[in-house]
């Protein structure tokens, strides 16, 4: 057990060591948190399925340096994001802003959910109606009742 946990710790430790590319010192914990959040939400333009926090592409490194520099010089999150978008487009944001071009992206989950709800509702209603109506006509129903009565007696 101890050996296993030692192995687990070892493996995790090695991966953590690989993930750290370079470190920036922040005296202010709030600023460190902003660095963490922003570097996780900014997308690396070169290696497109990674954020700049875990990419070791040179461009991601430059963007992290830029992010650190701008945080240290007192820029707000909006200013930093604007700076990045101005150069690399909406693409750099993993959480894109709402605009006519991104409207489809933001609204499609809501629309799909509404569509699913509508489909569910109409299916349920149809099956309820089908359950209420056994498909027999009045004459047949009377005959059935009579037959059942005869059997019971």
């Amino acid at each position, binding site marked *: 057990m101890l050996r296993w946990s030692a192995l687990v710790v070892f493996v995790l430790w090695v991966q953590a060591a690989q993930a750290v590319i370079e470190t920036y010192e922040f005296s202010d914990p709030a600023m460190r948190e902003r660095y963490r959040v922003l570097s996780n939400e900014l997308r690396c*333009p*070169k290696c*497109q399925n990674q954020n700049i926090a875990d990419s070791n*592409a*040179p*461009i991601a490194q*430059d*963007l992290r340096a*830029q992010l650190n520099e701008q945080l240290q010089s007192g820029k707000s999150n909006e200013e930093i994001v604007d700076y990045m*978008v*101005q*150069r*690399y*487009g*909406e*693409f750099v944001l993993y959480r894109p802003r709402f605009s006519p071009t991104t409207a489809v992206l933001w609204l499609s989950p809501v629309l799909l959910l509404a569509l699913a709800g509508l489909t569910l509702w109409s299916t349920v209603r149809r099956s309820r109606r089908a359950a209420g109506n056994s498909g027999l006509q009045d004459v047949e129903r009377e005959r059935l009742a009579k037959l059942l009565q005869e059997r019971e007696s």
Partner: protein
Amino acid sequence: MFVALGLLLGRGLQLDPQALPSAMVDQAFPQFSLTALGTDESLSREALLGAPALLNVWASWCPSCRVEHPYLQRIADLGVPLFGLNYKDRGEDALAWLGQLGNPYRLNIADVDGTLGLDLGVYGAPETYVLDAQGVIRYRHVGVVNEQVWTQTLQPLLLQLGWREN
């Protein structure tokens, strides 16, 4: 339903996810103050103005730049003003590279730290920008410039901007 899904996904396969529209298209080329490669001469945005031109982002560490280099030479021989942006490179390596392969560029901006590259939205070499006479970025091509890129994209665009082959 499945046909529609199939068409949608089929279309998705044909799109190139690497092709990013540059946020800088139709924007003015950024201001900069850097030196010319291998000299102390300082260069600014004004050096690129006056005629439609190409600006090629390259580096000696970039294998694809070596691939496109002979083609850039051919384009320069047609009389296209071709500017180089030597991106995050060491000066001596870049000069050795030009000495060995030839220099198709009218001038080379030495962007050692990649600051101009960052302002341009460069994310990797090679990239080639089409500028008009006023220094507005009209197009960005990412990747190697070859016959196809030249005849289908860059040449028509330059002709439209008023460039004439000499």
